């Protein structure tokens, strides 16, 4: 009799344990420093807020996360959740192991329209949506107020057009002998993604969206204007030079295009007063910027794990958590409701003023083409335009050659 009672208790206990045990899921990320600490804090907050799901955040260095995801997909040992740089989402989706979020969004009436629509470009694969943005960054103008002052310019008035960049740069060059504007001529994606802002500012397109990004569209009037502008800064106006990156930081150039993340670093690195602004556009163009950042995605697992991972994604992407996240990390909001949140806006205005232009610029942000071949396209493109930047070929020849190469890659 006693045996039976004991057995019954054991069975009930096991049943209760299994029924009420939290579902454990792994979340791979590469946020370190302050960002990593904040993530850990948020994950703990989530774990403590409920008892159904237990998320374990696993740090993987950013340099190896793509290859780790690659091998985990091949061996079938993927985590339930992971993040990646937006530019790799398309490639990771190629594993065929990412969960389509549409059914989950529909079932929960989750407001996906609150995200900046350009950010969703990266996760859209045909009719499916495989990732959601969780952090963003973009490019803007930084200027050296001390050099502006030295040149007799108003240190509080940055240029708003390309024409003003030239005008201010020439004055700076004449009065201080320093370069007006630093260009990224190191090649690769660094050159391409900065140049794209000039292209978009001149109302151009990089790859043809109408053709599903399968043909080059940069060999256009806007493309010629953008590349000619770079070459003119170097050879016509003599206010920029081909040099290793870092002139602006050392006070050897008065203006530079750089990312919102530098708001964190520049103030500790430079010995002059800094200003930041939305990046100027040509008189005949519009404001534009390029976006970076991370997106979160779910790997195909059991229904239970998928539901658990989705719970965390919903929690992590809700406005109040994102406000906290962006305030701590300096990431640019991925949702309109965060950019408009009073608490967030007053925080930025009062304590992170340099970040304000970047938050404003997010609405002008454009997405780099979400194609698997993007890294190769970007690199091939930079190689060709650098030939014009090094004055080896004309702007037209460089863009023509880049067009041929890019179309070959995408065919």
């Amino acid at each position, binding site marked *: 009799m006693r045996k039976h009672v004991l057995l019954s208790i054991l069975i009930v206990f096991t049943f209760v344990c299994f029924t009420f045990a939290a579902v454990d899921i792994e979340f791979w990320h590469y946020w370190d420093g302050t960002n990593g600490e904040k993530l850990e804090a948020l994950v703990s907050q989530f774990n403590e807020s409920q008892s159904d799901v237990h998320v374990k955040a696993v740090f993987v260095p950013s340099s190896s996360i793509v*290859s780790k995801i690659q091998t985990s997909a091949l061996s079938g040992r993927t985590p339930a959740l992971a993040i990646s740089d937006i530019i790799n989402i398309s490639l990771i989706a*190629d594993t065929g192991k990412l969960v389509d979020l549409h059914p989950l969004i529909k079932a929960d009436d989750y407001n996906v329209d609150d995200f900046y629509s350009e950010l969703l470009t990266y996760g859209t694969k045909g009719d499916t949506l495989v990732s959601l943005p969780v952090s963003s960054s973009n490019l803007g103008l930084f200027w050296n107020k001390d050099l502006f002052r030295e040149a007799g310019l108003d240190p509080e008035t940055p240029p708003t057009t390309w024409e003003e960049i030239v005008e201010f740069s020439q004055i700076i060059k004449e009065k201080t002998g320093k370069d007006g504007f630093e260009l990224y001529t190191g090649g690769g994606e660094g050159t391409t993604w900065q140049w794209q802002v000039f292209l978009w500012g001149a109302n151009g397109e990089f790859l043809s969206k109408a053709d599903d990004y399968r043909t080059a569209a940069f060999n256009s009037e806007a493309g010629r204007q953008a590349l000619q502008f770079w070459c003119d800064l170097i050879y016509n106006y003599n206010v920029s030079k*081909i*040099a290793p990156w870092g*002139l602006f930081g050392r006070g050897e150039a008065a203006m530079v295009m750089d990312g919102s993340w530098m708001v964190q670093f520049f103030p500790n690195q430079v010995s002059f007063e800094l200003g930041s602004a939305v990046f100027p556009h040509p008189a005949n163009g519009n404001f534009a910027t390029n976006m970076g950042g991370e997106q979160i995605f779910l790997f195909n697992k059991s229904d239970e794990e998928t539901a658990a991972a989705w719970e965390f994604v919903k929690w992590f992407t809700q406005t109040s958590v994102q406000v906290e996240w962006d305030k701590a990390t300096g990431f640019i909001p991925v949702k309109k409701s965060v950019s408009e949140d009073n608490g967030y806006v007053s925080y930025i205005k009062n304590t992170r003023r340099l970040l304000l232009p970047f938050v404003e610029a997010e609405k002008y942000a454009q997405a780099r083409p979400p194609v698997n071949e993007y*890294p*190769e396209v970007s*690199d091939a493109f930079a190689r060709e335009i650098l*030939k014009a930047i090094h004055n*080896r070929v004309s702007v037209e020849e460089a863009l023509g050659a880049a067009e041929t190469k890019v179309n070959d890659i995408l065919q």
Partner: protein
Amino acid sequence: MAFIFLIPSVLIIGVFNIYPALYSIVLSFFKWNGFSPKIPFVGLENYRTLFTNPEFYNSIGVTIVYSLLVTIISMGLGLLVAVALDRDIKGKTLYRILYFLPVVTPTVASGIVWTYLFDPSQGIINRTLAFFSITGPSWLTDSSWALLSVSIVGIWKRVGFCMIIYLAALQGISNSLYEAAEIDGAGDFKILKSIKIPLLAPSTLFLSITGFIDSFQIFDLVYVMTNGGPVDETDVLGLFLYRNGFDYFKLGYSSAIAVAIFAILFLLSFVQWKYTGGGDEN
């Protein structure tokens, strides 16, 4: 019993050397980005694309120029240093250590430090030149200087190794030969030309083969210092392979590049070995 002791070595070499090498040959006939579950067989397409790609030939040219510069100049300098340090001079051990230090310095660290030295406005090299009223070039961003600048670092890293090999060989040359030469009235230069250099031939052969093979596989130094730029002037084969494999995720294509590099190296080593007498001391 002996076989059991061999197992660890065989396993390690098999798993980490032989299998990947063979697998990359197999992979060179496929088109795969490492992510997609679809791995289509494409036959010789990767090789066709490779042999019609001007970037490949540019990389071969760049790599050959780099390898020749590094191999020949480091051997020349290494020989001079070895001859100088083969005498009884004060502090010769210290000199030997100093010359050998760059060999054991990690390449990436060397590359980063040299990048600072080469900085056109802040670097110590151009500042020193400026002191003598010489305007130094943009070492790493000027297309006509970049390859030479990277080669300088390659040479700096290899001179010590050449010195050690030559020094060891010099010490193996019998003193009686020098004495006989001196009796015959030969001076230092004559001894160097007619005794040392001919007797160092096996070391020279060894250094030229290993130097060429090592330099041909250069990757880290260029990756850190110029990343192939400016305008592909330093785009060595190793970087070309890496870019295609790990930036563009074209694993099949980059395997084809690896096979091509192997074939080139094999051929070059064979020719070099044959033409230099196959290591025969006579």
